[in-house]
């Protein structure tokens, strides 16, 4: 039984040798199976690169990535990947697109599940992909990915062009799939609130590296929001602090219990992420389950 969905060790990707900038650099983490993971970070942080590397569509410049204990190439039939631009063949009808999914995934394909997702969007199966709206194409792309009954779903900005109703419906469908089959799901977004209720695992990617990784609850619980008089915050790690006159507001990563004259509160996930994004020098945090276990992610 493999309990690791994705593991990377020292993973890096540079798109051009001339450009010195790395899209992703020195990225090591582990995602356990059965999690619904939010992959968040600002534009250009490396989210799409990370997903494409895990899907086996890009080759790492350095380091390794494994998916369900295999190379991404070997795991291909277990992965459902929906790229940001939702690539589909425009000339095909929806029904043909699903039939193509069936042909390409012999033995795994679940036509009923795929058709149900299309039907929920009140789409006519004979309509051509070319004539669909952005949101409708997303629905078909998700049907194609889910029909494959993958063990790992990699979704790059899946909800970006959906209306609120479709978003809720498709997220529900996705969660139901995960509940029934234990599917691991990774969803990227730069809109956190879109994912907050559905995800129980978090990867914050920023500037090409993973800055926070682990169970959302544990990551939030490791931090405290302090307000009160200005005083020494040691031994706690200060992520961000602001002073106004004699008053202080600080977000700290706790080291032991908080003892001092402050009022304490648990930060919201959004406060926590924003504080980290505003403070690029704050140390990274991976919970124990998100630490990589092996020295190379895949044995070649």
């Amino acid at each position: 039984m493999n309990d690791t969905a994705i593991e990377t060790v020292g993973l890096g990707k540079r798109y051009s040798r001339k450009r010195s900038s790395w899209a992703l650099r020195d990225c090591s983490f582990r995602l356990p199976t059965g999690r619904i993971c939010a992959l968040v970070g600002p534009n250009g942080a490396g989210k799409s690169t990370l997903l494409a590397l895990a899907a086996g569509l890009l080759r790492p410049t350095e380091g390794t990535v494994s998916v369900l204990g295999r190379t991404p190439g070997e795991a291909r039939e277990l992965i459902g990947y929906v790229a940001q631009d939702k690539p589909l063949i425009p000339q095909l009808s929806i029904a043909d697109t699903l039939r193509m999914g069936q042909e390409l995934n012999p033995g795994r394909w679940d036509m009923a599940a795929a058709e149900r997702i299309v039907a929920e969007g009140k789409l006519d199966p004979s309509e051509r992909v070319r004539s669909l709206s952005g949101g409708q194409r997303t629905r078909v792309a998700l049907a194609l990915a889910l029909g494959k009954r993958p063990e790992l779903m990699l979704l790059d900005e899946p909800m970006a062009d959906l209306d609120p109703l479709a978003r809720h419906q498709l997220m529900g469908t996705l969660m139901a799939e995960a509940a029934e089959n234990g599917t691991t799901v990774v969803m990227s977004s730069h809109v956190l609130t879109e994912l907050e209720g559905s995800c129980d695992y978090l990867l914050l990617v920023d500037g090409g590296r993973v800055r926070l990784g682990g169970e959302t609850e544990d990551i939030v619980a490791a931090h405290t929001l302090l307000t009160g008089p200005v005083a020494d915050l040691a031994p706690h790690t200060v992520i961000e602090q602001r002073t106004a006159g004699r008053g202080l507001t600080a977000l700290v990563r706790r080291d032991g219990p908080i003892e001092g004259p402050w009022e304490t509160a648990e930060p919201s996930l959004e406060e926590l992420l924003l504080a980290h994004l505003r403070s690029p020098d704050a140390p990274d945090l991976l919970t124990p389950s998100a630490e990589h276990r092996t020295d190379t992610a895949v044995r070649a």
Partner: protein
Amino acid sequence: MIEYRIDRRSGVSTYLQIVQQTKQALRLGLLEPGDKLPTAREVVEATAINPNTVLKAYRELEREGLAEGRRGLGTFITKGLGHSPPADSALRAELADWAARARGAGLDKDDAAALCASVLDDCFKNSKGDEDR
């Protein structure tokens, strides 16, 4: 069958909302011992929340002895919650008395509610009931 409503802006954690709504349904008699709770799949399909959250809520209900998971069948209510006193009870009458006096003393509704909440907080501080954390 109960249907859960998840309010993401309530500040109450999602699993606790499920626990509280289940208890509320038990108090109101909308759920009774022997009733089946919706499956995790049914809940998440309707609410788009995380499946593990539903399972966590059901485990909490089991821990409190209110529900029981039966392998392959689902989660069932095992105990009712019926000690909410009827509308004409002595407790209610005393509270009505108190409310009238509070009003007479110049408190408005929000003042009285805040006072009640604070007393309840003190009074139930050490009993682990609805309000975990």
